[in-house]
């Protein structure tokens, strides 16, 4: 990067089911809070980037006009689960190149509009026509992973137990009740071997972060916050034949690039917010990120290495499994969590002496691809 880019404020509404709120109703309050907390007047904003997948036309403009924020470019971004993080990547790139000084990034989604069930995928996709849904994709990853390694269904359950334990400490989480391995395994079957408590919930949410150049940060007199040490976006690559579903190439490649950009190694990370849409994902990503050797991800979860007091706290917020997963909002909410953790504002779930954080979202069910998009960011406390 040519210029240092900083996250100078974050705000979000707790993820939940807000049946009487529109995209505007979800996003305007954190937008106002993030600007106030940054000490930025709306006239100082150079550009707005808005991640969402199901908001419809001009979602960003509909939100911003409510506070009279206009004129400057507003960019609406759809990259499925990576929408919000892609918006951050675009904002960060524009600041790093010196094109703008202050950007507002909004991630917002209202999944209750669909009434529940699996996420609607593109009806034009070949496998969607055949009946694929995201729980089935992750379930097939799980079946194969359990077949190839010593991991068991209990390990999949342990991921959910950890997520709920963390979520119980997070006032922004959709689920704040702890669960046991027995409860996870006994919950309703969704797609074998995944049970309901191994799947992220349907919900609504919005999160906002303000990004600033070094110059703007000095002008505003901001201290603390965090520096963006790496911002990486990759797209999936088609495979017509064999694909190893237990080694997600797009996430591995993105992580390697992010470590190289930041100049750090996996062991340097104090916390990670990763894309645990289904519990199997967390195990597979431990390996993709170099936290565990091939086939040994379950050791980390069994030994408590990825909870508070462990070597790296994974999903201190509760992750998608407990905090919730309003698709376009998730990537921005992860960065908000990193911001609060690295600036010592995470309350009961504070990771001790957190200096380095990584966030990861990947998504989009598309035939022939591991995932459509993957975004990884690494942050250093400023």
């Amino acid at each position, binding site marked *: 990067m040519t210029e240092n880019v900083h996250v100078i404020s974050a705000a979000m509404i707790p993820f939940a089911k807000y049946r009487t709120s529109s995209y505007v109703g979800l996003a305007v309050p954190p937008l106002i809070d993030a600007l106030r907390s940054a000490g930025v007047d709306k006239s100082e904003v150079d550009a707005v980037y808005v991640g969402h997948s199901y908001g419809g036309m001009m979602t960003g403009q509909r939100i911003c006009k409510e506070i009279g924020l206009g004129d400057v470019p507003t960019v609406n971004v759809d990259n499925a689960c990576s929408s919000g993080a892609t918006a951050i990547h675009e904002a960060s790139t524009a600041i790093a190149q010196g094109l703008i000084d202050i950007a507002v990034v909004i991630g917002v989604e209202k999944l209750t509009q669909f009434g529940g*069930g*699996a996420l609607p995928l593109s009806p034009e996709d*070949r*496998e969607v*026509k*055949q*009946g*694929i*849904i995201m*729980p*089935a994709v992750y*379930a*097939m*990853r*799980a*079946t*194969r992973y359990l*077949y190839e390694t010593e991991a068991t269904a209990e390990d999949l359950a342990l991921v959910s137990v950890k997520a709920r334990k963390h979520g119980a400490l997070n006032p922004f989480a959709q689920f704040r009740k702890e669960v046991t391995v027995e409860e996870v395994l006994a919950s*309703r*079957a*969704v*797609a*074998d*071997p*995944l049970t309901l408590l191994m799947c992220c919930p349907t919900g609504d949410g919005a999160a906002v972060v303000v990004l600033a150049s070094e110059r703007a940060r000095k002008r505003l007199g901001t201290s603390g916050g965090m520096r963006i040490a790496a911002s990486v976006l990759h797209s999936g690559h*088609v*495979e*017509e*034949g*064999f*694909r190893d*579903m237990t080694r997600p190439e797009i996430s591995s490649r993105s992580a390697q690039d992010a470590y190289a950009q930041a100049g750090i190694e996996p062991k340097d990370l104090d916390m990670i917010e990763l894309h645990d849409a289904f519990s199997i994902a967390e195990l597979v990503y431990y390996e993709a990120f170099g936290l565990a050797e091939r086939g040994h991800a379950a050791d980390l979860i069994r030994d408590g290495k990825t909870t508070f007091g462990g070597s790296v706290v994974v999903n201190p917020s509760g992750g998608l499994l407990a905090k919730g997963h309003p698709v376009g909002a998730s990537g921005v909410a992860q960065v908000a969590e990193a911001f609060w953790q690295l600036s010592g504002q995470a309350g009961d779930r504070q990771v001790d002496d957190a200096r380095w954080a990584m966030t990861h979202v990947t998504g989009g069910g598309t*035939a*022939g691809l591991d995932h459509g998009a993957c975004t990884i960011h690494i942050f250093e406390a400023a």
Partner: protein
Amino acid sequence: MKTETAAKASAAIADMENDDLLSAFPEGPRLLGTRCGDCGREMIGTRVVCSSCVSSNVGTIALPTTGTLYSFTRLHVGGEGIRPLGYVDLDNDVRTLADIREGDTPLEPGIRVELGVDGENWFFAREASETKGHHHD
């Protein structure tokens, strides 16, 4: 850069005209595939361009009826009852999503499977000669 005296219009692909994967071939009902005449890559479905070398010199083929079950799930949501669904790696290295029919022996990754047709529906099931615990991966 190629220069023309008048810009040529690109042509849309009528890929929604027929999106059935199962089709009648002289040898019987088979899944439709496409073979690239230039690089030899074989792909699922009807394509007009090769995803590997971008050649338009492609033609329809009947895909193999046998393959290896890469993975599967038994889906309990989104429809009535339980729906076993899996990825089958056909013998020409083309992967297809498929309904999997369960037999007396439980499914497991790595088993050999073959195409079955039941009216308009198609599925893969354990090969008749396959025995339990006999892996091919």
